[in-house]
């Protein structure tokens, strides 16, 4: 398993399931959940969390600003 270096937290109730973050992710971390949120949208979640490198591409394209990104710095 690859070293985990980043993680994203999606605000499930704010996400509208537009799929733009899934397409923008260069390491195929994100996917749309089979479950739906309060509004009936398939919200985004980390399907392959071990691939995340915390590049913030998903948060850059998110129209609803529902993604928070964390990254571990300077770790081998």
């Amino acid at each position: 398993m690859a070293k985990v270096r980043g993680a994203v937290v999606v605000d499930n109730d704010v996400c509208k399931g537009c799929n733009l973050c899934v397409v923008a992710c260069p390491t195929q971390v994100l996917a749309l959940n089979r479950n739906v949120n309060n509004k009936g949208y398939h919200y985004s979640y980390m399907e392959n969390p071990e691939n995340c490198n915390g590049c913030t591409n998903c948060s850059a394209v998110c129209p609803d600003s529902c993604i928070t990104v964390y990254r571990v710095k300077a770790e081998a």
Partner: protein
Amino acid sequence: MSVLTDRINEIIKPENLVYAKSPLLNDDLMHYCPGCSHGVVHRLIAEVIEEMGIQEQTIGVSPVGCAVFAYNYIDIDWQEAAHGRAPAVATGIKRVMPEKYVFSYQGDGDLAAIGTAETFHAVNRGENIVMIFINNAIYGMTGGQMAPTTLVGQITSTTPHGRDVDLNGYPLRITELLAQLPGAAYVTRQSVQTPGAVRKTKKAIRKAFEIQAKKIGTAFVEVVSTCSSGWKLSPVDSNKWMEENMFPQYPLGDLKDTGRADAELYRIKAK
């Protein structure tokens, strides 16, 4: 799996935070459709204002259109303008309070159709304001009717067989027209469909606000955007459609970056 969850929880700590929503964006749920470019541009404006530390000095003028409720989402001072009149209202605010940062935020139905006169004359006067123009080639709010910026052949609810030049004329490239006006200081066209484009647009918006501080003319930022509801495509397909069809008609890049023209060039020779 629990090992993985533990490792993720180890990363999710305040000291490892690299991106969080700007505090200027409040917790109200945006009313925009999924994938709408408005949300991205709202966030970029909030981030630029936060980074420049001008929250208390900034006044936005919101349009009529989908972005009419922009004042609900960004915690700065706002003024709502009549349809198309945002540049005129922004002019008034800026002239009364020249120390404030004033920007207008308009869509193509507002800026390029009903508000064309206000737009052109505000830029021609070289008002020291920032104008942000969201061009999605359609009237999104009212149900996807043809806008002046609609592409030839594009299907809308009022052009069900595609826009016809004989009947409806040509797409209006308003940003190219504004770049010719002597009052324009900075005119650029950007987009927000990829992370790279979002970062470029943020730089352009920041530059526009910095130009306002220098008082060297109008800064105009067009953002070529999608309207997945109006175009009747998914958000991802909308981005593809925009890249294939909008960008050839609305090429990205800076059109002018010289500051307001020198008045001596336009002065009469004889007295």
